[in-house]
């Protein structure tokens, strides 16, 4: 059976709809800019959602209870998916999944005076969102580092194929916080300019915040399906990728086998712009002889949105398939990995049928999925 990819939404600094986001990045716009924070003398290049703009958007809902900023991002994103589809989360056959790494991490930074205690627990986010949409099933939370979003979509696909649910909305979300900025800074992983995935002069990551949601369904809601997906562990190091790309290689192998494919039309890679991650991906792709395919990373537009990244980037990849448009890999100028010889330099129109989406993260985790058009 097919698992179809339906309604979706992105809430990011580039806009609160998928259309606004795709149009912005198609014209080369990046959400990553220099930001100053009260906690640091240094500035940070990151992508932040305007608080006032999102709050004013959210206030139109007239919700009575209190929400964190992250919960508001999620509610607005899920609301859009529900509005575009006829899915009712109060139906027992439908499930909401949340993917996040740090959730309401700003609660630990005492960002809210008025909230009830305990909001730092990820299942409390699920509960507050479930109340808004009257969810029949307790939302399922996946927290698996930077593959959280893509892994949640793969798990959703498996639940639908096995008749556990008819429809699943996966919502990925994370914030930019002092917590993550200071942590990645202590790893010397942050770039002091807009990041340059796969480029010879790449210096590291930018952090970004977003909420992104997508509907996966047993119903033929669209001409797009997820035809394969798998995860795998490097079994090598908890904070560095495998030099040989073993985990990613294995995740891609299982995904290609499941989708019954040897190749795809393009790759939407993880591309964090750290030296080791990007090189590891280049090795894993070349071990599958996929190094000649057009490849992009979307981190130059959004930064690394952590638990949202897999969902957000999958939605952009699906939009690329729909609009037959290869999106340029922002920040790329000079070949900076051993094997990748077609990092996309310019956004171009091209007939596209299928895409490989990958993600990798701390803890040695890797995930891959294939999206394709059906007739």
């Amino acid at each position, binding site marked *: 059976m097919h698992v179809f990819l339906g309604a979706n939404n992105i809430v990011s600094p580039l806009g609160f709809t998928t259309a606004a986001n795709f149009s912005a990045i198609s014209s080369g716009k990046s959400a990553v800019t220099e930001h100053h924070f009260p906690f640091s003398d240094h500035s940070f290049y990151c992508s932040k959602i305007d608080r006032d703009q999102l709050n004013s958007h959210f206030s139109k809902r007239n919700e009575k209870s209190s929400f964190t900023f992250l919960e508001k991002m999620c509610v607005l994103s899920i609301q859009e998916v529900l509005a575009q589809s006829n899915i009712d989360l109060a139906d027992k056959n439908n499930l909401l999944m949340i993917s996040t790494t740090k959730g309401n*991490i700003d609660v630990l930074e005492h960002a809210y005076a008025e909230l009830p205690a305990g909001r730092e627990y990820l299942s409390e986010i699920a509960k507050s969102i479930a109340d808004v949409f009257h969810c029949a099933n307790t939302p399922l*939370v996946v*927290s*698996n580092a930077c593959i959280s979003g893509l892994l949640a979509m793969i798990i959703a696909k*498996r639940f639908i194929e096995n008749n556990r649910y008819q429809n699943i909305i996966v919502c990925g979300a994370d914030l930019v916080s002092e917590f993550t900025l200071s942590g990645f*800074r202590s790893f010397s992983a942050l770039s002091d300019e807009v990041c340059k995935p796969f480029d010879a002069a790449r210096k590291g990551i930018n952090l970004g915040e977003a909420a992104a949601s997508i509907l996966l369904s047993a119903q033929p809601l669209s001409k797009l399906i997820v035809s394969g997906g798998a995860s795998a*562990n490097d079994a090598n190091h908890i904070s560095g990728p495998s030099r040989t790309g073993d985990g990613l290689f294995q995740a891609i192998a*299982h995904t290609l086998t499941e989708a019954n494919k040897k190749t795809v039309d393009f790759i939407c890679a993880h591309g964090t712009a750290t030296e080791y991650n990007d090189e590891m991906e280049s090795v894993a792709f070349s071990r599958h002889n996929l190094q000649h395919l057009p490849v992009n990373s979307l981190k130059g537009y959004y930064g690394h949105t952590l638990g949202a990244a897999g969902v957000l980037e999958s939605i952009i990849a699906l939009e690329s398939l729909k609009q037959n448009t290869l999106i340029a890999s922002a920040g790329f100028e000079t070949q900076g990995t051993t094997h990748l010889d077609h990092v996309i330099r310019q956004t171009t129109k091209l007939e596209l049928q299928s895409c490989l989406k990958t993600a990798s*993260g701390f803890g*040695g985790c890797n995930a891959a999925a294939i999206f394709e058009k059906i007739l």
Partner: protein
Amino acid sequence: MNAIISSYCKIVPNKISVGGKLFFEEASEKELPEFLSAAYKYGELNYPKFHKMDKLCKLGMLATELALRNCPDWKALDKSRIALIFSNQSSSLDSDRNHAHAISDKQNYFPSPSVFVYTLPNIIMGEIAIKHKISGENAFFISNQFDPELLFSYSTILLQTTGTEFVVCGWVNCDRTHNDAFVYCVKKSNFKEQNSGPELDHTSENIRQLYNT
């Protein structure tokens, strides 16, 4: 296809049981770190990396090692066919609070990569994967309480529809007052055990009972 729970280990403060039998107990109540160190010595884990881990990983590592030890023939399997599925309530909040504390005072600001790396719950699966070269499927779920139906359902899907042959499945929670771990191994029942332990059918009811007793 049927599957079997081939071994399990449960850790609550000051007490460890393996396969339902008492394995280790502290006579006097100890703080969690001391208890974990004492259990590490008693269990002869001989894995120096253990001492670098945060409390969540130490708890999960101990429970996993003791569960795997009771299920000897898993080592013969292709390690890419072994999946890790873990869950908890508190994510990595214990280490999160440590990192948040390290950055809370601007006069005494000491964010450390060795703390920050543990601010993700799935790191425990990375640690287990590294120790045993296990490279199969991973998933970390957060639920408000132990959810045997979820773990059963997702393990079953992996065993039935992917190449997965063996699942190390568990709950490992580390929080201010709520510390516990329960790790069990699930294998396809066509996989012949030479040294059979206390085997049980893989059902959510059995998982629930093992966790509750």
